[in-house]
């Protein structure tokens, strides 16, 4: 990828030309527009046959829930999945982009993608944007070299861990992992632990909520368990229901007819060039 030759504005990417003007507007009292952050609890752990990823499904915009059931476990390759926390647009865009790059690479090499490849592509992209792409990721997968689990921070640093949590609910989830994780978990034990950690985030962190998504990746197989647990049904539905019969009140009706005849004057002034 020859990125160095192109100048930033021509190819896209960040142009900082408007920063001074934005500063001036903020000083004059303009509030900057908010973007959709995922709040979030995302986790990953390594078990005896592979990796398990988990995520909640709430997307927030400040104190309001924008999406009650969004998908935070993104596809990267048939054997690699990535959970994303931070700005929703950034996590979507960066995982889609690297997923496409991995596919092209698979065509090029004729081999299954490796987790470290995805890791390097993601971290170098995020580093080059100096943290402005607000994506905190938990990347997990199984390739020829074995199972791998990594965390990637918005500024581009990475860690390789046996179990990891990210997002606003990461402390709640990590408390569960630190108490109950051990090496060599079976699939059922691993899924149960991941679901427990995500539940801890859902109930104790206000930025996370709704349902639990789980993804189990083993050698040659992956199971995407969308809405594995739904611990938050709506508590009250009115029996009789509500009707919204009130339309906008009409206070006055006035009809102004448009002119019916338009006269065409022959030989008028030509239109100016």
């Amino acid at each position, binding site marked *: 990828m020859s990125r160095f030759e192109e100048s930033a504005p021509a190819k896209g990417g960040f142009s900082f030309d408007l920063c001074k003007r934005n500063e001036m507007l903020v000083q004059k009292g303009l509030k900057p527009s908010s973007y959709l952050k995922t709040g979030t609890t995302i986790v990953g752990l390594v078990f005896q046959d592979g990796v398990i990823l988990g995520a909640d499904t709430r997307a927030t915009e400040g104190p*309001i829930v924008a999406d009650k059931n969004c998908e935070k476990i993104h596809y990267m390759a048939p054997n690699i999945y990535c959970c994303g926390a931070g700005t929703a647009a950034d996590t979507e865009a960066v995982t889609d982009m690297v997923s496409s790059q991995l596919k092209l690479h698979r065509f090029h090499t004729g081999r299954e993608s490796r987790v470290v490849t995805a890791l390097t592509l993601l971290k170098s992209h995020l580093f080059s944007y100096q943290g402005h792409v607000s994506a905190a990721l938990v990347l997990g997968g199984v390739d020829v070299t074995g199972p791998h689990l990594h965390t990637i921070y918005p500024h581009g640093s990475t860690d390789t861990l046996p179990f990891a949590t990210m997002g606003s609910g990461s402390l709640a989830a990590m408390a569960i992992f630190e108490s109950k994780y051990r090496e060599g978990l079976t699939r059922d034990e691993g899924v149960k632990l991941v679901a427990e950690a995500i539940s801890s985030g859902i109930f104790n962190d*206000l930025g996370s909520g709704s349902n639990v998504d789980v993804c189990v990746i083993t050698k040659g197989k992956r199971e995407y368990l969308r809405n594995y647990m739904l611990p938050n049904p709506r508590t009250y539905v009115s029996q009789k229901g509500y009707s919204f019969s009130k339309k906008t009140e009409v*206070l006055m009706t006035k009809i102004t007819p448009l002119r019916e005849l338009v006269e065409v004057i022959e030989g008028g002034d030509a239109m100016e060039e």
Partner: protein
Amino acid sequence: MPKQQANWSPYDNNGGTCVAIAGADYCVIAADTRMSTGYSILTRDYSKIIQLADKSVMASSGFQADVRALQKVLAARHLIYQHQHNKQMSCPAMAQLLSNTLYFKRFFPYYAFNVLGGLDSEGKGCVFTYDAVGSYERVGYSAQGSGATLITPFLDNQLKSPSPLLLPAKDAVTPLSEIEAIDLVKTCFASATERDIYTGDKVEMLVLNANGIRREVMELRKD
């Protein structure tokens, strides 16, 4: 060293939502029981409602330390009133007292968003809604707190008179029965909980009518 701004605030927002609806001969006051700070939950079981007099109940969301202090001041003032006048304060009188108490701290306000509900001297339901410094108005229904922006449009649709310009003007109190009003309040909280992260856990509802006062609690989503 560049000029440093003060970055300690005496206030915190503990979240929560309060609603009150006035009926022909009853009043419903409800508030959720979640107390939070930032992204964390402090407790799932905190009552934001207090009964100030036998026919006045106040629900307050905002900064609970200030709410608690305000409740104490009002309770003390009511006790003094009872000693001096040998009777309980009426709801409109309590409404005025609350307004004065809030304005007294105009330049270091109580971070409390209050809604006062009860029965007036004729036995009709009344609801008074306040801002943080004591501006108040008698209304047919009101919502305050983090979920207020989600609940108020729904109540406007179900309870509001069509337009103040259309005559005859409808009365401030709703023609709904007590059961229907409670159903409405439950729906409001269940819906607000879905979309507001600060509202949830449980909703506590107090109903005042000629027979006295009744308390009901309903479970809400805990996430």
